[in-house]
Every structure is written in structure tokens, then in C-alpha cells.
């Protein structure tokens, strides 16, 4: 019992918080890939969301405007990607990479325009803080399992979005249409689905989710000016999309696992005499293992949407 309350529960809670940006990124990636677009720009869109959320909540001191800016910034990045890949039929892989390069550059550029600022106002961060303990002042939650009800509002929003997406993809007509687009462009087109519209809408929505993930990092988790606040989380999300086999509910568990894993590296560092950098490799090594395992035992129902990477061209059916 001592172990449970003293070590495991706090660790579990930390892991949940750590995995949330990855969860947002993964959900965004799932939406895009269900529409048949591999978007490698998740890292870039998260960075753009992070920068926009940080800068806008800084100047307006309003958390809602900050979050809205992050959503718009992520969506804007995705819109560039959608315009290039859907309308102009550019290569999805290279366009996604370009988006990440652009997003990282823009973030650094915008954050460095104002040299004096180091952190966002406390009032903004406070409204994103745990509701029960920090806002209502309830004490004694630290080592109890009830702490799970006492996390940032953005954590629950992520869970909610995952559940909504699950129903959307599996139990609504739009969701089924979307999956048709992702599986077979020509068949979806023949069935009267507006393929390009579906692609645009879902790629952009996916980008907006990535933007929220970035905002979680820059406005709440690390509210200090940091150039690379996302730090590879977007890339892990790209891999996690595959790991959770394009299923939003599994993404919750997947992100929790990765959150726990990344923390494991950090918490082991105190006790073990290994180089800290060796432990930092852990999430990346596990990602590779995940990639290998999923590719070796790829079953039909857990496969990537079949039209992923292909651009729609009526002429070329």
C-alpha cells in the first residue's frame, strides 16, 4: 500500500499529464490519415500552436484567446499542407516535412521578436491549473487516486475529444464517408462523396488539435519562453498513430504509456549511475520497436488507410 500511494499514484498522474500533448498530436494525426493524408507536419503544427498560444495569452492575458489562437495557428499550418497536397497534389511526405521546418522556424522567429518576455502571466496559467486543488483549494489530494479528477481542464478536453472522435469515426455517416475516402478515393468519389472537401476539413481539424497540444505545453506545462517546447513530441505522435492502429480510444492508452515511458527515463536518472542521455533514448527506442512490431504483424483490420500518401486525381483512376 505504501508503494501504491507513495510512488505509483503520483507517477501515474504525472504520466497522464506528460502524455497529453502526444495525445492531441496523435488524434490530429489520426484524423488526417483517415482522410488519406499522412501529415508529417504534426511537430510543426504543435510548435505553431505553442507559439501562438503563448504570445496571444501574453498580450491579451486571456486564456480563451490564447487557446483560440493556438487552434487557429495549428489549423492554419494544416491549411497550407492541405492546399499543397489536396489542391496542388504535392508530395505528402515532403510537404509535411516542409511544414515542420516552417513551423519550427516561425516559432523561433516569433518568440524571439520580443526579447524581454520570459513567461506568461500567472492569471492565464492559473485558469488551466488543476481545478480542485488550485482553484477551489481542496487539500490532501496529492497521494490519493482522486488526484486523477484534479488535472488541467485541457487533460479532460483531450479525453473528451478522443471519445467524440471514436463515435464520429464509427457511428456517424460523416465518419463512415471519411473512412471511405481514406480507404479508396475512387470508390468514395463514385459514391458521390466530395473527396477534396472531406480531406480539407479533416486535415485542418487535425491541425487544430495539434495546435491545442502545443498550447497545453506552452501555456500550462512549461509556461516559460522555450524555443523548442514540443521537443519531439509531435514525431512520437506520428509514430503513435500507427501504434494505436488509427483508433482514438487506444490513443488515450498509447499516450499514457509513452508519457510513463518518458518519465521513467527521467525518474530513473536519480537512482541509477547510467548516463542520463542513455535513458533519454528510451522513448525513441520503444517507438522504433513499436514500428517494427506493428509492421511485422500487420493485420488487415489494423492497417493504415489504404489511400494514405496518394493524391486524388480523377483522371488517374
Amino acid at each position: 500500500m505504501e508503494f501504491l500511494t507513495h510512488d505509483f499514484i503520483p507517477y501515474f498522474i504525472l504520466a497522464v499529464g506528460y502524455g497529453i500533448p502526444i495525445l492531441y498530436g496523435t488524434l490530429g494525426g489520426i484524423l488526417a490519415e483517415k482522410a488519406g493524408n499522412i501529415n508529417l507536419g504534426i511537430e510543426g503544427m504543435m510548435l505553431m500552436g505553442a507559439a501562438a498560444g503563448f504570445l496571444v495569452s501574453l498580450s491579451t492575458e486571456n486564456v480563451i484567446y490564447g487557446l483560440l489562437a493556438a487552434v487557429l495557428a495549428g489549423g492554419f499550418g494544416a491549411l497550407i499542407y492541405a492546399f499543397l497536397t489536396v489542391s496542388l497534389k504535392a508530395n505528402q511526405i515532403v510537404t509535411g516535412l516542409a511544414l515542420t521546418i516552417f513551423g519550427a522556424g516561425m516559432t523561433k522567429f516569433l518568440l524571439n521578436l520580443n526579447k524581454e518576455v520570459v513567461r506568461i502571466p500567472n492569471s492565464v496559467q492559473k485558469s488551466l491549473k488543476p481545478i480542485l486543488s488550485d482553484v477551489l483549494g481542496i487539500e490532501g489530494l496529492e497521494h490519493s487516486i482522486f488526484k486523477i479528477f484534479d488535472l488541467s481542464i485541457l487533460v479532460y478536453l483531450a479525453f473528451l475529444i478522443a471519445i467524440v472522435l471514436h463515435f464520429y469515426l464509427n457511428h456517424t455517416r460523416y465518419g463512415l464517408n471519411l473512412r471511405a475516402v481514406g480507404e479508396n478515393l475512387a470508390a468514395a468519389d463514385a459514391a458521390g462523396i466530395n473527396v477534396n472537401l472531406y480531406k480539407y476539413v479533416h486535415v485542418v481539424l487535425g491541425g487544430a488539435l495539434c495546435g491545442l497540444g502545443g498550447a497545453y505545453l506552452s501555456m500550462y506545462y512549461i509556461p516559460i519562453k522555450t524555443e523548442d517546447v514540443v521537443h519531439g513530441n509531435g514525431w512520437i505522435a506520428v509514430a503513435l498513430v500507427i501504434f494505436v492502429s488509427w483508433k482514438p480510444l487506444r490513443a488515450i492508452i498509447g499516450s499514457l504509456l509513452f508519457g510513463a515511458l518518458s518519465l521513467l527515463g527521467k525518474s530513473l536518472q536519480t537512482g541509477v549511475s547510467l548516463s542520463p542521455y542513455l535513458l533519454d533514448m528510451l522513448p525513441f527506442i520503444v517507438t522504433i520497436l513499436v514500428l517494427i512490431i506493428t509492421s511485422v504483424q500487420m493485420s488487415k483490420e489494423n492497417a493504415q488507410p489504404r489511400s494514405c500518401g496518394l493524391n486524388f486525381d480523377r483522371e488517374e483512376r
Partner: protein
Amino acid sequence: MNLFRLVKRDTITSMHHTFIRVIAILIAFGLSSLLLVFTKSDPIQAFYNLLIEPFQYRSGPIEIIKLTTSLTVISLGIGFAFKMKFWNIGAEGQILLGAIGAMVVARSLPTMSAVGLLPLMLLGSFVFGALWGLLPAFFKAKFGTNETLFTLMMNYIALNIVKTLESGPWKDPKSFQNTITPLPDNARIPSLFSEIPWSLLNAGFGIAIVLTAFAYYYINHTKSGYELSVVGESESTARYAGMNVFAIVMRTMIISAGICGIAGFIQVAGNNSTLSSGVAGGLGFTAIITTWLSKLNMFMIPVVSFIFAIIAIGKDGLITIGIPSAAADAIQGIILFCVLGCEFFIRYKIVLIKKSDEFISKVRGAA
């Protein structure tokens, strides 16, 4: 109601082709200027500092050529993989491993003369880089494992290996910080022209020229080069033609990652004096842009690399006029977006549908 329709072009003259590209670059500069104006900076001054100023201070041209050398070598390496549609975005890690390979050789043969040591270091960097790239290649060829993510994750692992070496096993005992002991003179790439002011220019430049010629010859004039292009176009065609796709993927990735490894050697023994975690410093990602902008034409790679080297050196000059140097990174992204978009106008022609005209003439005819 569509106002226009798309027609696929059968042929396009190279003049027209170039024209579209130039327009794309101009649009990129226009958009970049907008970005700068929006952030209350002077775009003309910014482009001057970015593109012209680097040539005006004494070490500028040398820095540019050194960077062009490294970017060219890395882009050539990536070019091999991209030609095969193997999305190797792990150049960053392959550079680091190549650098480690060169260091291993140099550290284990401290007394050897430069004539013998440098070729061995080159070989070491090639082998280490190639092995780092071979791992994702194997799983891609065998099980279809996603190579984009695999190679990318390998970057982070490589970076942490170098950080580990920096902080422990290879740490310079004389230094208070985590730095690795500098290489002795016999393990440094010599200058090409020691008597003229360009003395800082090292033989890495020569390596880049040789590799460019090799890459062009290999891809355009050898059977292996042809095979890798076929695998890139269609894996099933390659299989149907009886090609051993597994062997082709492995062979090409040895070359691709090995050449990126050589860039690591040029970085540690030529441009820097030792290995550090900043040895790759994002070059592996910039090279993805330069490779793509070259349209995988091996002779275009040095040209595009040269332009990007100017931007990379010039970006420090932005700080003097109060613009964060990262503006250059954003501009690079914008250029890539515009060029990616312009490919569409090279492949398709937009034809306006003049329905209204037809209608009017019909009405007039009836009257």
C-alpha cells in the same frame, strides 16, 4: 459550376519549366517580405543582410563554401534514398554516426601520419554512417516498416549517444565543460591552398566534387542506378522485372547513409576540430530541402546548396538589424512551400471554361 478545368501537360519546354520555378521563388520572396513587414522589419535591408552581406566580410566566402561542401555531400546522400522513394530523414543521425566513426579511428591510431590516417577516418565515417542507415533499410525492405519515422527516431538516439560520449568516455580532461578532446593535427583535413588567404578552405571541398561526379554517374549511367530508379517508380514493376528489391534497397541505403557519414567526417576533421553534439546542427534537415529543390538532379545539388549556405551564413547578420535569425528558417520553409506548389503548374495546365462566351454567341446567332 467549374470556371476552369485541369489538363495534364504532355510536354513542357525547359524554358517554360524554368519560368514557373522562377515565379515560384519570386512568390516565396514576396511572401517572406510580407512576413517581415508584418513584424515591422525592413524586408529590403533583411534580404541585403541575408544574401549580399555574407560576401562582404573577410571570412564570409570561406564560411559559405565550407557550408556548401557539407550541405552538398549530405544532399547527395539523401538524393540516393529519395530517388528510390525511401524517405531517409535520418541524415542528421547518420552524420553524427559518421563523425563518431571518424573519431574512433583517429583516437585509436593517434600516432599515424595524416596520409594514412585520413583515408581510414573517411572509411570509418562511411562504415558507421552506412550501418546506422542499414538498420531502417533492413526492416523497410523485409517488413515494410515505416522508414520515415524509423530514420527520424535514429536521429534522437544518435544525438544522445554523442551527448553520452561528451559527458563521459571521451570528455576532454582539460575542459570544465562537456567537450571532447580536440583532434591532433595529423587527424585534420589539410587545406587545399595553404599559401593564399583561402587557406581555411579544406580538402573536404574536393571530396564534395568527387562525390557529385560519382553520384551523377552512378544514378544515370550504371545498372544499379537504373534499378534504384525503377524501385522508386514502382516496386511491383521492379519485382516483375525480376529485380532483387531487397538487395537494391540495402545497397542504396549503404551508399546514402554512408555518404551522409562522410559529411560527418568533413564536419569533425575539417570544419570543426572535434566531435560535438552540434556537429550536425540541423544540416540533415536543411539538406532534405536542398535535395528536393534540386529535383534529385545531382548537378543541381551543389548549386542549391550554395544558395542555402548563403542564407544560413547570412542569417546571423539579421540580428544586427533587430530581426531574429530564425527568420531565415521560416523563409526557407516558405521557399520550399512555393516550389512544392509550383510543381503542379508544371504538370497541369489550367484552362478557363468560357461558357458565357459560347452562350452569348449562340444567342446572337439565333437572333
